[in-house]
């Protein structure tokens, strides 16, 4: 397929995944605010902004309301749910022919819904309802995509975007949270900020699955292990990277070896490290470093995708 089309499909899903993650964070944190949390609203939202890599300087005096607005309704803020959905829709429009009509209809519907709820003052809006409704719409879209689109080359690019974004987001969310609340002592049984650790699990819709593996005994090290290394839970970094690799294998059959060498190596290395790593090792060498490493590798993988399929230099690509 045309490189430009692959590019748009990839980004469409990155934006959709981003929107869903942000909406989920907003939902979880709004609920936490109600649960007599000790943290101040301003501090909390600043933390959430870090989770979505929003650009805001430390010195910026943004109040909680403004930050919440930036995360939800603000079309001028690139990290808001509304902006991500708009960007996804714009990409979808460019490649309307490649996606199914059902997908397009749902993207469009979602787009019009979030625009309609456009508000200028967060105090007048219902951010919780908005976040929940957006998330439902996004999950519906994910389902429609998987069941109405041919699982061919186009679909593979959608998957690359979705899973790379997911891996990166989970790693970032983990990092921000652990920096804030982890005392460094992995042997402690009880935890302070119990609600916040629950919140972390909920941010990845992971609480119930975590319980099935570890019981409701919430411990930081186990949470890290679950969200980083669990092979079966859809919102773990390992799961995401493995699905990413799977889609890559599907694409490999079509592209030449030369251009995809680096991409395959990077993805394979990340996948292998997650597959064979043990959580003790992660903590002894430093969780934060490990997470930074994942984030860095994600960025490298992203540029490798461009090198392999989209922006390859002409010299490398001439074929008869």
């Amino acid at each position: 397929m045309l490189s430009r089309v692959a590019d748009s499909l990839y980004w469409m899903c990155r934006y959709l995944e981003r929107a869903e993650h942000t909406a989920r964070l907003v939902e979880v944190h709004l609920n936490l605010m109600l649960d007599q949390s000790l943290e101040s609203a301003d501090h909390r939202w600043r933390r959430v902004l870090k989770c979505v890599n929003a650009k805001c300087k430390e010195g910026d005096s943004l109040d909680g309301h403004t930050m919440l607005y930036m995360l939800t309704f603000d079309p001028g803020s690139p990290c808001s749910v509304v902006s991500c959905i708009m960007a996804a829709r714009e990409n979808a429009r460019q490649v309307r022919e490649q996606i199914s009509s059902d997908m397009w209809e749902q993207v469009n519907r979602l787009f019009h819904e979030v625009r309609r709820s456009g508000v200028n003052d967060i105090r007048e809006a219902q951010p919780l309802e908005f976040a929940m409704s957006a998330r439902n719409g996004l999950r519906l879209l994910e389902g429609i995509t998987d069941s109405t689109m041919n699982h061919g080359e186009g679909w593979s690019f959608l998957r690359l975007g979705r899973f790379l974004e997911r891996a990166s987001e989970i790693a970032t969310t983990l990092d921000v949270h652990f920096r804030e609340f982890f005392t460094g002592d992995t042997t402690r049984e009880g935890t302070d900020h119990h609600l916040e650790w629950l919140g972390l699990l909920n941010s990845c819709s992971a609480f119930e699955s975590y319980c099935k593996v570890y019981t409701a005994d919430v411990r930081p090290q186990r949470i890290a292990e679950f969200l980083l290394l669990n092979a079966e839970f859809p919102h773990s970094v390992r799961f995401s990277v493995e699905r990413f690799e799977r889609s890559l294998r599907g694409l490999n059959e079509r592209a030449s070896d030369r251009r995809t060498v680096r991409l395959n190596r990077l993805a394979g290395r990340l996948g292998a490290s997650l597959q064979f790593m043990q959580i003790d090792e992660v903590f002894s060498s430093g969780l934060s470093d490990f997470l930074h490493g994942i984030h860095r590798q994600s960025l490298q993988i992203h540029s490798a995708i461009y090198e392999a399929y989209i922006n390859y230099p002409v010299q490398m690509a001439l074929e008869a």
Partner: protein
Amino acid sequence: MATPILTRDTLLPAPFERYSTTSAWDEMFGDDGLPRERTRPIFDTMLELPAEELRRRKQVADLFFLHQGITFTVYGRGEGTEQIFPYDMIPRVITSAEWSVVERGLTQRITALNHFLRDVYHEGKILSDNVIPRDVVYSCRHYRRQMRGLSVPRDNYVAVCGSDLIRSPEGKFLVLEDNLRVPSGVSYMLTSRQVMKRVFPSLVQQCGVRSVDHYPQALLSTLRSLAPEGRHDPSIVLLSPGVFNSAYFEHAYLARQMGIELVEGRDLVVHDNIVYMRHTSGLRRVDVIYRRVDDDFIDPLAFRSDSILGVPGLFNAYRSRNVTLANALGTGVADDKAVYAYVPKMIRYYLDEDPILDNVPTYLMTNPDDRKYTLENLDKLVVKAVGESGGYGMLIGPHSTAEQRREFQDRIQSDPRNYIAQPTITLSTAPCYIEGQVVPRHVDLRPFVLSGEKVTVVPGGLTRVALRSGSLVVNSSQGGGSKDTWVLHD
């Protein structure tokens, strides 16, 4: 045929009770006020069906357009401005005998135009023989000097032509203008037919309508026949300016129907004077480009350097004959409205035949007598800018204000080369179903002519309707709509 035959006093049955003819030729009703034989079945059907049923069928048609996403984007508005293409469900009928004349006339015309283009980009014999003044050709903005001496496959410059025809009050088809650059509208022709088959299937069958569905295959064949030498299984693409272009729907539709790739300028790359598409699997060579991007924007290295729609180096690849562009560059010199006035002469000069289809009489503002006459009679004439399309830059004398006429007077005097004038021909009228009533509206016809290995004219074409009462402007960008056109079998 100057006296109205049907007036408010002569009542036709519903839903025709508000129908009245004028001096225009009416597509449905004859001089006697009765429906013509060719349109009788349609007339009968409209009478037989109860009002509710007619309304229901109209809704079916509307929904079809909506669900298929058959849209048209209007320039100059904000985002999300795709509108459903305005459409009327009463078909316009042409007899087989009438069509035969049109078909032969258009075939003759495109042949002569291709000869003309080849000539003016090479030896220019028609100019040295003084059949057409040199300066009319060379002063044309769309004459591309870069095309001089360049040869194109089969000497075929125009692969797709949309000539606009009108029917005079005498019922004769005249050519109003030729569109030889990037004519559009064929996708509406194809989808209108689908709608009619859905909404009035028995009528289609009863009337015996010639099919148009072969257009995409015919276009593909035409493009294939223009492949560069040695390329036996040519790779063909459609080059579009992209989603923001008003005709994008058509680009996507045709690409899909022909099974070819829809590309934008940024998907193509030229290397060693060969054109390639950027695919995820590598570069794929391109042999023929059905280009829907204007000359000015097609190559920033050869034409407008600020264009982001084109492909740098495309012109060099074209010149090296490694890629074919359909239509060729520089065809605009032949659809300039001043050059249009000379087409009958071209037919005689190159083909030694009389034109089968006549032009509308045309006054050139560069001619002193024509100019004087025009300036004295602006209220009776239609004045057009030579290089415009879409119905813009036009003055319709009888509908104009004194101020508008003064403005055009100034324009003509300061830039005579840029204007022509024609008598206001009353376009023929056809019945339209508007708000539960059938009323007459002015129409024209745009058949589509394909020229490659051979000339193919699809029976019918796009009938464009000026939906506003009394309006003579049929262009979709200014409130026009379309109708299905039925050419009958013998």
